[in-house]
C-alpha cells in the first residue's frame, strides 16, 4: 500500500493526454469531462467556500457530516491552470539553503535559521497573526538567505523585517490596516535593532527579492491548490464522505507550520512538500474513517493513483519525493513526541532597579556564625570531666520538648 500511495511507477500524464490504465483514467476523464456536465452538478449548490460549513451536502453523497464545497470556483480546469502557474513560479520562489551545521567563519548556521523560524512562530502567536503571514515571512527569510550571504549578527533584524513585510503584504491583500506596528515588533522580538533599521532592511529585502514585481508561490498556495484538486477528485470518485474538505485546511496549515520551521523540509521542492503534506492529511482522514463504523470504500484508494498523476504532472521524481516525505515525517514525529527544540534562544531579562536590589533574601546576609555540631553523646569539650549528680550522662542535649511524632503541617490550598 505504501508504494501505491505515492506512485513509484513512473508515469507521464498530461491533462490533455489519455492513457488506458484502469480506474485512474475514469477519474481523470471525469475531471476533464465537458464543462457543461460539471457545471450542472456544481450549480446545484452555489454557496461560496467560506460558507461551506453551513451548506448542504453534495448531491452525490448519502449522509455526510461535512458539507461539500462545490462551487463554480472549484473547476478542475481552473485549478490546473493555477497549478501550472505555481509550477512556473516554483523555481523562482524555491529556497535553497546551504547552511553549515556548526558555527564556521561567520556564517549563519542551520540552527540559527531554525531559531529564526521559531521566533517568527512565536511572534505570530503573540500578535495573533494569521498563518498566511507566518508562512510568507518564513518564505521571505529563506529566499533572502538563499540569495544573500548574511552575517549572523544581522539575523534578528532580517527576521523582524521579513515579518514586517509579510504583515504589510497581508494588509494590502486584505485591504485592512495593519494592527501591529514596527515598534511593537522590534520591542517584543528583542532583536536589538531600531524601527528605522527594520524599515531599511525591509526595503533591502524587497529590492533583492524583487517583491515589487508581485506574484507569490509559497508552500501555502501549493497546499491550497493541491488540497482542492484532491478534494474534487474525491468527489468525482463518488465517495460517501468528503475528503480534504475546506475544514481540513486548518490541519494542513498546522502541518505546514511545523514543516517550515525545519530547514530540511524547506529545502525540498515546495511542490513536493505540499504534496506530501496533503497526502499525509488524506491518510489521517482515511484512517479516522476506517476507525469508525463504515469501512473505507475501495474507490478511496484511487486517490493514491491520482497522487501519482499529480506527481507526474509536476515532474517530481520518486527518489526526491520519498526523501521529502521521510523528512517531513521525521519532523512531524519529533513534534508529536513533544521533543524540545535543539536550539534555545538566549533571552534578555532586564530587571527593574527595585527588584534587582534584592533578588534572594540571603543576598542580604553579611555574616554567618561558625557551625555548632549537634552532639549525640555527651562529648564534653573540657579536658577533665567532673560528674555532678543532677546531670544525666547520656545526651546532655536532652530536649525539653515533648516527644511527639512529626506531624507535617500543611493544608490543601
Amino acid at each position, binding site marked *: 500500500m505504501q508504494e501505491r500511495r505515492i506512485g513509484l511507477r513512473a508515469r507521464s500524464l498530461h491533462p490533455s493526454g489519455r492513457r488506458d490504465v484502469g480506474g485512474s483514467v475514469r477519474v481523470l476523464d471525469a475531471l476533464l469531462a465537458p464543462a457543461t456536465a460539471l457545471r450542472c452538478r456544481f450549480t446545484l449548490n452555489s454557496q461560496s467556500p467560506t460558507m461551506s460549513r453551513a451548506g448542504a451536502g453534495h448531491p452525490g453523497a448519502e449522509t455526510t457530516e461535512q458539507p461539500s464545497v462545490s462551487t463554480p470556483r472549484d473547476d478542475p480546469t481552473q485549478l490546473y491552470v493555477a497549478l501550472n502557474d505555481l509550477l512556473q513560479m516554483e523555481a523562482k520562489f524555491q529556497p535553497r539553503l546551504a547552511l553549515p551545521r556548526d558555527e564556521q567563519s561567520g556564517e549563519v548556521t542551520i540552527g540559527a535559521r531554525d531559531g529564526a523560524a*521559531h*521566533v517568527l*512562530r*512565536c511572534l505570530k*502567536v*503573540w500578535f495573533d497573526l494569521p498563518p498566511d503571514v507566518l508562512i510568507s515571512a518564513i518564505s521571505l527569510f529563506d529566499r533572502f538567505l538563499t540569495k544573500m550571504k548574511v552575517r549572523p549578527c544581522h539575523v534578528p533584524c532580517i527576521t523582524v523585517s521579513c515579518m514586517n513585510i509579510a504583515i504589510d503584504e497581508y494588509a494590502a491583500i486584505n485591504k485592512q490596516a495593519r494592527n501591529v506596528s514596527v515598534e511593537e515588533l522590534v520591542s517584543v522580538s*528583542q532583536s536589538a535593532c531600531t524601527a528605522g533599521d527594520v524599515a531599511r532592511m525591509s526595503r533591502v529585502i524587497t529590492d533583492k527579492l524583487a517583491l515589487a514585481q508581485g506574484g507569490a508561490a509559497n508552500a501555502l498556495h501549493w497546499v491550497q491548490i493541491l488540497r482542492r484538486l484532491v478534494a474534487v477528485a474525491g468527489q468525482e470518485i463518488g465517495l460517501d464522505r468528503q475528503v480534504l474538505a475546506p475544514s481540513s485546511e486548518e490541519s494542513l496549515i498546522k502541518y505546514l507550520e*511545523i514543516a517550515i520551521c525545519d530547514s530540511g523540509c524547506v529545502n525540498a521542492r515546495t511542490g513536493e512538500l505540499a504534496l506530501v503534506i496533503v497526502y499525509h492529511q488524506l491518510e489521517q482522514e482515511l484512517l479516522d474513517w476506517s476507525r469508525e463504523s463504515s469501512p473505507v470504500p475501495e474507490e478511496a484508494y484511487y486517490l493514491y493513483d491520482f497522487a501519482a498523476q499529480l506527481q507526474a504532472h509536476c515532474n517530481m521524481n520518486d527518489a526526491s519525493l520519498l526523501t521529502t516525505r521521510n523528512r517531513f515525517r521525521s519532523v512531524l514525529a519529533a*513534534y508529536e513526541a*513533544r*521533543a*524540545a*527544540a535543539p*536550539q*534555545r*534562544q538566549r533571552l*534578555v*531579562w*532586564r*530587571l*527593574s532597579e*527595585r*527588584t534587582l536590589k534584592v*533578588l*534572594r*533574601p*540571603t*543576598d*542580604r*546576609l553579611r555574616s*554567618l*556564625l561558625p*557551625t*555548632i*555540631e*549537634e*552532639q*549525640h553523646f*555527651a562529648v*564534653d*569539650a*573540657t579536658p577533665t570531666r*567532673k560528674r555532678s549528680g543532677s*546531670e544525666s550522662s547520656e545526651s*546532655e*542535649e*536532652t*530536649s*525539653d*520538648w515533648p*516527644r*511527639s*511524632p*512529626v*506531624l*507535617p*503541617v*500543611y*493544608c490543601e*490550598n
Partner: protein
Amino acid sequence: MSAGTFVDRIDPFAKRSLKKKTKKSQGSSRYRNTQDVELQALPLLKDVPSHDQEELFIHKLRQCCITFDFMDPVADLKGKEIKRATLNELVEYITVGRGVLTEPVYPEMIRMISTNLFRTLPPSDNPDFDPEEDDPTLEASWPHLQIVYEFFLRVLESADFQPTIGKKVIDQKFVLQLLDLFDAEDPRERDFLKTVLHRIYGKFLGLRAYIRKQINNIFLRFIYETEHFNGVAELLEILGSIINGFALPLKSEHKQFLVKVLLPLHKVKCLALYQGQLAYCVVQFLEKDATLTEPVVRGLLKLWPKTCSQKEVMFLGEMEEILDVIEPSEFVKIQEPLFKQIAKCVSSPHFQVAERALYYWNNEYVLSLIEENNQVIMPIMFPALYRMSKEHWNQTIIPFIYNVLKTFMEMNSKLFDELTFNYKVDRQKEKKREKERDELWKRLGEMELSQKRAQAAIK
C-alpha cells in the same frame, strides 16, 4: 543643681515631645544613680606579683560593678574614666595571661558582667521605628558596656576557660537574662550578644536544650502576641549555625521547630528585618532533610501574602532559594500548588510581583525542572501568561512574558499549540456566554418595559 533639672533627669519622658528629634538618639536604662561611691585607683595588675594577682583581679572586678549615669555627659567623669581604664586592663589581662581564670574568679566575673549588662531595657524612644529609614536609639552607656561585652567574649573564648566550672555560674537564670537583652535597640549590643550566646551554646551542652526552648518562647511570643522584638535576626543567625550542625537523622524536636516556629515567623509584618537569616535557616533544614520540602513549601503557600506586595516579592525570593536546592522527586510533589500560586503572581497588577515570578525562568536549574515536568506546568501557567501578554499595563513585564512563552514553545511545541488553541476556544465560549447573558438581560428589560406599558394602558 536645681530641683527642676534633677526632676527632668529622672523623668525619661520629659524631653521627648518638646525636643526635635536629633539624628542620633541615645537611650539608657540607668535613670538613677543611687551609688555615690568614689572609685579608688588601684595598682595595675602587671605591677603586682603573680600570687597577689588573683585578689587584685577580684577587687577590680568588684570595682567595675559600680555603674554610672551616661545620660548626663558630665557626671562623674573621673569615675567613668577609672572604670573604663580598669575594664580595658581586665580585658588585656585575661587575653595575655595564662592560668588567670582560677575557680574563685568565675563567680566574680559573672557578677560584674551581670551587674553591668542585666537591666530592664527602656521603652522605645520611637515606637514607629523603621529600621530601614530611621537610625536606632543607641545605648548611652556603650563606652563601658562595649568593654564588658568584649571582656565576656574573651573569657568565653579563652583557652583557660573551663565549662565545668563555668556552668556553675552560667546557668539557666543567667542565660534567660541574656536572652532578654536581645531586645536591645542598639545593634552593636545585639551583635555582641549574638556572638556571646553562640559561644555559650557551643560550650555548654547542658544548656543547649534550655536555650532552644527559650528562643522558641521568644519567637512564639513575637509571632502570636507582640510582633515586636529587636533581636529576631540575631537569634536566627545563631540558629542557622545550630541547624547547620544538626546530626542526621533529624530529631523530631527540630522538625517541629521548623514547622511550628520558623514557618509562622514568615507571617509577621516586619519580616523584612530578618528574612535573610530566616531563609537561610529554612534552606539549611531542607539541605539536611529533603523530605521536609513538602511541608515547607505547602506551609509557605498557606501563608502566602495576599495584601502586601512587598512581602509577596520577598516570598518569591525565598521560594526561589528553596527551588535552588530542591530534589527533583520533591519538586514533583509540590509543583501543582506552587505553579498555581506563581500563575496568580504573574497575573498580579503589581509589576514587581509579576516581574519576580517571571524571573524564575531565568534560573537554569528551575528551568530544567520545569522542562522535565512541562506537561503538568505549562497548562497551569499558560492561560495567565497568554492573558497577561494582552492585558498587562507595564512595559517591562511584556518582554518577560514573551520570554516565558517563547521558552515554553521551545520546550514542547505541540503542547503549546494545543494550549493556544484551547485557550482561544474557551475564550470564544466565554464571549458567547457573555453575549447570551447580555441578551437575556436586554430581553428582560424589554419585557419589563412592555409589561409596564400594558399596565399603564389598562389604567
